[in-house]
């Protein structure tokens, strides 16, 4: 657990918008999440090999940070965990799709850990791809979307982590969300505005 201590220390020193501590944290959190993920997937009897990101994040969070709601490092952890989570999921599904041989990335989905029968597919590789595209045009919006989608963070929290105003985050998110929705719902880019 040597790395875990450093997570806590790094988090304790994190300042708003402090990308450096984020970059130091990411490998640690990523490693932890990946280890947890493989322990889930190696679990015998789980034929579906369903990756449950919520369980992952929950356990990782409790292990690395605990449940102290007062603690300011919490948001920084969530932001880093979002990035790490995105990567873990991408790794996972890329591997799965390779195994399926011929299964297109877009068909591979993961489930939220939701109640039975209510599974909605989240096309992780496609989402990842779109976020990368978005980042080329508007890095901050992509970060906001990442924190929101893979980190479950609320706008105030994101604003604090990035050191920007709440209004900025709202705009970024509205934009990113609209773009992602338009790209993920349509099979192609539509030329027809009045669809």
């Amino acid at each position, binding site marked *: *657990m040597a790395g*875990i201590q450093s997570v*806590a*220390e790094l988090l*304790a020193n994190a300042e708003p918008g402090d990308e450096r501590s984020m970059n130091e944290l*990411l*490998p640690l959190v990523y490693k932890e999440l990946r280890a947890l993920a493989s322990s889930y997937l190696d679990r015998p009897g789980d034929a579906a090999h369903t990756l449950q*990101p*919520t369980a992952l*994040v*929950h*356990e990782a*969070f*409790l*292990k*690395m*940070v*605990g449940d*102290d*709601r*007062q*603690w300011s490092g919490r948001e920084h952890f*969530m932001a880093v965990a979002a*990035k790490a989570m995105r*990567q873990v999921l*991408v790794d996972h599904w*890329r591997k799965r799709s390779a195994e399926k041989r011929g299964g297109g990335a877009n068909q591979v989905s993961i489930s*939220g850990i*939701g*109640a039975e029968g209510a599974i909605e597919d*989240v096309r992780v*590789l496609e*989402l*990842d*791809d779109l976020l*990368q595209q*978005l980042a080329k*045009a508007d890095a901050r*919006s992509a970060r906001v979307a990442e924190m929101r*989608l*893979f*980190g*479950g963070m609320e706008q105030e929290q994101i604003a604090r982590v990035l050191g920007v105003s709440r209004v900025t985050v709202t*705009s970024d998110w*509205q*934009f990113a*969300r*609209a*773009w*992602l*929705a*338009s*790209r*993920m*719902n*349509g099979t192609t*880019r*539509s030329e027809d*505005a009045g*669809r």
Partner: protein
Amino acid sequence: MTTSSEDKGGQPSPDDALRLRRAKTIFLRAQDAGLAEREEILDRECRDDAELRALVLDLLRGDQEPLTAERLADDIRAAYEGSTVGKPVESRGSRIGRYRLIERLGEGGFGVVFSAEQSEPVKRRVALKIIKLGMDTRQVVARFEQERQALAVLDHPNIAKVFDAGATETGRPYFVMELCTGEPIDAYCDRHKLDIPKRLELFEQVCAAVQHAHTKGIIHRDIKPSNAMVSTQDGRPMVKVIDFGVAKATASRLTEKTFFTEYAQMIGTPEYMSPEQAEGSLDVDTRTDVYALGVLLYRLLTGTTPFEGNKLRSAGFAEIQRIIREEDPPAPSTRLSQSTATIQTVAAQRDTEPRRLGLIVRGELDWIVMKALEKDRARRYDTAGGLAMDVRRFLLGDAVTAAPPSRVYAARKFIGRNRALVAATMAIAVSLPAGVLAFAWQARIASAERDVAVQARVAEVRQRQAAEVERDRASRVAEFMSGILSGAGPSVAKGRDSTMLREMLDVAAGKLEKGELKAAPLAELSLRTSIGDTYSELSALPEAKRVLEAGLAIARETHQSDHADTAAVLGSLATVHEEMGDFAAAIACRREALEMLRRLHPGDHLSVSAACNDLANALSAADDHDAAEPLYRESVAMTRRLVSGDDSELARNLAALGSFLHAMGEYEEAQPILEESLAMNRRVYSGDHPNISNILTELGLLHVRRGHYDVAEPMLREAIAMNRRLYSADHPEIARVVSNLASMLRETNRLDEAQSLYVEALEILKKAFPGDHYRTAAAMNNVGLVMSDRNDNEGAEKYLRESIAMHERVGTGPDTLVAVSISNLAAVLYAKGDLPGAESMMRNSLRMFKSILSPDAPEVLSIVANLQMILQKQGKLAEAEACALEALAGRRKLLGEEHPLTLSSIINLGMLYNKQEKYPQAATLLEQAEPAARKVLVDELAGTLGTFLTTMARSRFSMGFDDARYRRSEKDFLEAHALLLKVGGEADPSTVSCGAFIAEFYAAWEKAEPGKGYDAKAREWTKPAAK
């Protein structure tokens, strides 16, 4: 780290990126506009860029569509909240029962908190807390329903009221409580940069809330900053403690399996978890809350918790348990000094400088926090109120009841270290020179004597309290029964078998436990006090404590403000604490009682003077002499103003003051005060009475101290005979006086009788206090001592080490007892020839004594004298001389010239001068003391006179030849040898060394005046010495 995904096809060109950014701006502007305006914006902004226009339209469409990935976000968010995912989450606007949710306030350890509006029966804003799923809802609600009835009695400005509980449609339990705005106490303090006193005042409010709940029998179980909310009201910060009863309702047994899934979610943070909670025990009590309050205080002072959250969180379940149960956290000031990096911030938040912050926290605040954080809850404050009172004392600049743990701790460490050393050192039998009159002579009896100061007034206190309680009672039944019970106490029953009395008490106590007198709380209170006092007189201490603690709760509940009943129960309870050796708890009770009575009776009043005296006794028992003395004097002065002629109260308070002065070594002032008290007691009580036997003992001991053995012995024997008539055979009171007499016999070298009496006392105490007890430990010390007197060093070491070990286990007794046993062990090690071991033990003992007693106290002087011998034996002569001078100066001041101990110091210094070849100094010192020595060192002390004369003669002849001086020396040498031969026999080391000096002396004389036959005398004396 690589980036999350390799670049793929379909990447936007730089142009695309530029266009997308442009689209964002237009999209955001168009988004809020009406349809017509939107068209206008698009036309204006995009003009002929069809791609840009399409992009913006895509965005506007996407804005209206669901994004499936958001589902993931919601689930992850829910995971952070610990909520089970997949069920609808209550959100603003939805209704739960008769409450409409208004705004989400945040998440606590248990779930989500909303502000909500209640529509009926009254319209008001409340806080509604929805518990996470996964807990057994029905059980939780049922348990809470039970708890709610108890919670209804909570009525305190610092407690958020709990109104209601139920379950949502999805089956999640919820609680409805008073809406508290504000922020957690630690955040509030930091944000407002509150200094330490202001923080402590807020902390007191938290304690007051918790104490109120404790008096109602309600334990919080989950005290932490987020459950102590602070808001500013009327310009002043106001604490509201929330979530009372919630933890109990939702508690389940903590196991490894449930720890991370359940406990970590529920309680959230293990930093505030007490050792008993960490063990998974459901047996929590008020002291569990005291622990959490201690952690909270720690955090308010230092900005961190005793065990840092990160450390705990990174540990596994078993490791967390181990850390909380076993690891000693650093004291707050230590923690502050460790974190140089953060102390700047921490100090700034406390409106002070780093160095100053350390100084404020070091000492008493450290002690207070560490006492609250004791692993063993029996050593914590019993209640939040006790903790709060110590904080208040600190704020007022009074002495706190918490004591530094360092002395006992240091002793334990020391013993641990030296055990190995002792084992490794070869034992060589070296006996002390007879001139060192009874090595460790004074310190040995200290243990037995110490008890006196504490115990002497106990019996009278009880009588007085019983009498007070009997007055003004609501119930005649209770009065009747109280009369019977207190009438049957030992001081009245006079040794009649108390078995029946005990049975009666058990029956009565059982009826009370069943609630038979619930309707008449005053009657129950009266009865509980009587039963408790009588139990206590019978030394049935756990029973007494239980009965009285319940009585105290009734008193607090029945009399919301100050009341004499409450003060009386506090007094009775304090007596029990004292008997059990828990002086800190006793002092807390006594202080509370005194403060209460002063408020009830401004000016002179007998109950105030009595309470002063009681508190003084408790303080003195806990070695806080400076605080005790003014209270003793105030008590006597006030009583003299109130009574005229003979009075039992005045007699009692005089005895207390006299005993205290005696214990402080103020013999001259103490003796007439004690004599006045004894005479008054004999006139007030006819025949046998505990007061009389107590003062006889005290006065007897004072005479022992002053060397008046012939006066002392009959007094002590009378006291023992009286106690045997007053008490049952196994009563500790008998043991006390028996061991005092034994100590006197030891001093006068009557070792056989002394040992058998010490053993008798030990056996009585073992029966009276099963298990470990500081008095049993002291009795073992005494047996060890008398064994060492009889040169049974193995037996002595065994008893002494066992005594020290028992003190360490008990931990709450007076520290001087441990110091005494350690010094005695040092003496035994010295006798065995382990000089380094003896020196370090002795130095440790001296350090302990000096930290407790004045530098002139007899114990301190004895230890100094002993240390001198050890140093001298090791050839550290300069250090030894300093010790010898210190001891002699102290004894001259304390005891005068004509005392065996003073003379013993003079002999020791003389020997040391001889060794350093400072013969004229030695001779002058001894010649001046000779008249006193010849007067005092007679009968059983005659051997010491022999050593005195030997030393003096040796210094004289060594100064060089002078006819008169040599003749005088010859005379003294021969007298000394005769004395030593008579007392110790031919083989006694003192006799042998005296003979050797005589041979040396004649050889010197032969040299100075050859041919006068001194060579023959020298040969003659050499022979027996060689033997």
